[in-house]
């Protein structure tokens, strides 16, 4: 326990150093914005947020393309996107690169999103659905519209996951205006996007949520997984507040929309 904890602190400090250097250079200058504070003096990230990009289609830059269901024409075509990956390159180990290509070729059959499985982190953040941050001093509860997924970020003394899970185990802390969340113990069943980008059960994600203005956050995720990638790599994107007056998360219990895919072939045949 102690070793695990101190290792992760060292890793985190190293990560923070690298990230703050790159953040500064990316923006050209240090961000001047200071987030409003909660009643207990923490940066206030409460709200309903959503990514506005096509990262869920492919974390790397991609041109528009025909969608998976030709009958749907333009309705479900793949939209183009600039990419959210730093350097636009994902550093796969050779065997993993082959698996990624296989995933991509069999996307509809293999993507856990098609089956409405819990999305894991970071994919939950940039799925095309809103999510909500409810921030209290001891825990930050993050609820996602997609599949009703949820995470409880522990803001106290870091704790170790009792078991592997789909949404992983989250320990958070504040670094100035930034909420940093260390995510471990995710199972290997989730993916990173619809392009077949994937990870193993050795995935370690460090997320950083940084207020940029009253209605925008910058989201970064540092992704490391020594079984799949040759080095840690990073994605980043803005998140936008859903400012509608009556905004809230609605039900998207998608299990019922995935049943035909999962069980349709087992339906009774006419005449039997």
């Amino acid at each position, binding site marked *: 326990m102690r070793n695990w904890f101190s290792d992760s602190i060292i890793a985190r400090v190293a990560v923070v150093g690298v990230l703050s250097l790159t953040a500064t250079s990316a923006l050209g200058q240090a961000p001047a914005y200071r987030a409003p504070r909660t009643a207990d003096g923490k940066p206030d990230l409460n709200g309903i947020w959503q990514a506005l990009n096509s990262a869920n289609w492919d974390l790397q830059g991609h041109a528009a393309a025909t969608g998976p269901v030709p009958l749907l024409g333009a309705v479900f075509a793949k939209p183009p996107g600039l990419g959210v990956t730093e350097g636009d390159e994902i550093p796969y180990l050779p065997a993993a690169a082959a698996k990624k290509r296989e995933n991509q070729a069999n996307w509809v059959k293999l993507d856990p999103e098609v089956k409405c499985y819990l999305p894991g982190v970071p994919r939950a953040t940039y799925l095309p659905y809103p999510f909500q941050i409810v921030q209290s001093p001891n825990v930050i509860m993050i609820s996602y519209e997609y599949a*009703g997924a949820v995470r409880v970020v522990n803001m106290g003394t870091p704790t170790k996951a009792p078991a592997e*899970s789909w949404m992983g185990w989250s320990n958070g802390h504040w670094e100035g205006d930034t909420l940093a969340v260390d995510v471990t113990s995710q199972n290997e069943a989730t993916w990173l996007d619809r392009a077949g980008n994937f990870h193993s059960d050795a995935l370690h994600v460090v997320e950083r949520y940084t207020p940029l203005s009253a209605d925008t956050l910058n989201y970064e995720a540092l992704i490391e997984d020594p079984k799949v990638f040759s080095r840690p790599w990073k994605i980043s994107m803005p998140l936008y507040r859903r400012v509608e007056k009556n905004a809230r998360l*609605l039900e998207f219990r998608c299990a019922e929309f995935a049943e035909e895919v999962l*069980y349709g072939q087992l339906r009774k045949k006419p005449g039997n």
Partner: protein
Amino acid sequence: MSPRLFSSTHALAAVVAVLLLGQALVVGQAPSPTTKAPTAGKVWTPPRTPDGKPDLQGIWSNGTLTPFERPKGLGTKEFYTDQEFAELASRVRKGDVGEEADIGAAREQTLRYDLSLYGFDLTKARFASNKRTSLIVGPDGVVPPMLPEAIKRNADRAAKNKGHEFDGYENRPLQERCILMGQERLPMIPPVNDNNLLQIAQGPGWVSMLHEINHHTRVIPTDGRPHISQNIRQWQGDSVGRWEGNTLVVDTTNFTGLTANFRGSGEKLHLVERFTRVGDETIIYQFTVEDPTTWAKPWGAEIPMMKTQGPIYEFACHEGNTMISTILRGARVAEEEAAQKTAK
């Protein structure tokens, strides 16, 4: 209770729930939640969040010995006396109970859990003390009779599915399909001693509640925003909240007409829940339901929730669901075999 899914996540949830039961506190030691607030002598000040709202945060368990409906022999008796309650608690610890206490999964004959495997010791079971003879409040202590139109509505739904139970996934119960677990449905009735946990977090203008079962999470606005359009119907309706003194009042409407929501009710179901912290370790959860298409009058219950240790484990039901495919495959194999027999 419908058949359970024997997925690994279920087994995990069961372990957690039973471990919780195994904590060393005996029946009768928790503060009595039968009154609105502790009265005797000491002054208890409800804690506040940093922004000044009553603080309901933490992980709470609604594990209880009190049956949902009052045992028939008790008539209109709503509360046990201290002595009667002490005797009942003592009998429970010996495993000797009849209708008076619902010990659910803690029953020796409950095959779902091998109690010795989980190190479960009935003498150490932890439940909130509750002198009520039933969770349902009032002189009747039982669910009011269903109106004829509700009986017909539910019978029609069942008749439509009769003879087709194994045709396809859409004919299986919502619980098996992990769309809506029986005990996940609102209001929150204690399950039989598993998945009893509720984690509450509060931010300015919102209260978030993570219900252990099927990771059902409600993010409830308390800033006065209205219900969503009546055109939007949801399995768990739409909840809006407000603070009344020390009590969080949550109003839920917009249920669907696709299922018998709560106890046979229809889409007109209107639920009002009240969460009141009455001590460091206890929240009193009260609810009233009304549905003019189902019952002649509103009715409700009162359930104590005890503070407990976490964490809440992830309940990934759909992801581990092998039940639907197993049941349907079994039905197809049986049909195939029957067809071959006829052909011979």
